[in-house]
């Protein structure tokens, strides 16, 4: 079984103990969710069972950079693996909500590690540009990812950010390159019959 661990717990474990949170957010495959919830309850670690509890979130609830699985820390135990998200991916994920607690987590990680720098953050957000278009489904009435980034940027980087020119357009331009191709169909359509020049015998130089 593969258990993804995200939220503040990996930050608390890896970076700063004071970054307290009462829950450990995990996610497993949808078909395994009820089983793991039962295991959590049996261990007395469910919500309302313990001061510090484990919350099994729906698969896909951790919305962050698509790079996150490449750089997560995998802890192998005999019958499974716990995959701890890298701090940068947790921070990118926190921008979905960007509450005061989330912004403080950003500030704390930056003060402890010096990362992510402004440049690194821009690079990460370009790599996770899909997040800017996700939060517009029916029923979602919270602020969008873009609004959140715009709102907290001055606090983290002491300046406003122009999302379109600094993140969205460069990211989509790079993605678009993979889908672009020269207009070869047009070239095929315009081909006209033109036979190769054949040299006739009369042109053949003859020996004097």
């Amino acid at each position, binding site marked *: 079984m593969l258990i993804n661990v995200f939220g503040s717990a990996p930050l608390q474990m890896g970076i700063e103990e004071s970054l307290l949170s009462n829950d450990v957010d995990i996610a497993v495959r949808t078909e395994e969710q009820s089983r793991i919830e039962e295991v959590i309850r049996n261990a007395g670690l469910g919500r309302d069972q313990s001061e510090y509890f484990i919350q099994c979130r729906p698969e896909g609830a951790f919305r962050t950079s698509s790079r996150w699985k490449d750089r997560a820390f995998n802890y192998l135990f005999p019958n499974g693996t716990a995959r701890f998200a890298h701090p940068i991916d947790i921070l990118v994920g926190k921008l979905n909500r960007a509450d005061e607690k989330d912004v403080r987590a950003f500030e704390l990680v930056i003060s402890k590690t010096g990362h992510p720098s402004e440049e690194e953050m821009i690079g990460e957000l370009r790599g996770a540009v899909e997040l800017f278009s996700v939060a517009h489904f029916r029923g979602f009435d919270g602020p969008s990812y873009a609004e959140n980034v715009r709102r907290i940027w001055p606090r983290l980087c002491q300046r406003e950010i122009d999302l379109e020119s600094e993140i969205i357009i460069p990211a989509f331009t790079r993605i678009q390159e993979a889908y672009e*191709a020269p207009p*070869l169909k047009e*070239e*095929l359509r315009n081909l006209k019959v033109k036979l*190769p020049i054949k040299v006739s015998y009369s042109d053949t130089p003859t020996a004097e």
Partner: protein
Amino acid sequence: MKQCSIWRKARIGGRIILRNRENGAVTPRDARLAEAIAADPAVTDRLLDQGMAAVLGRLAERRALREKGREHV
């Protein structure tokens, strides 16, 4: 190896374009094929581009093999 028909068309189209670019020659058969391939919505610019790259790659492989053969002589 059996190729999918769309990919085969893309390679044929790519070969016709390359031949035309190289010596400007277009036979009536090439022109007929070019027209049919250009009208086929499944054969996209991207596939034609890949088809051309595959044809050029095959030529390069053959050339490399010939060179290698010469070295062993």
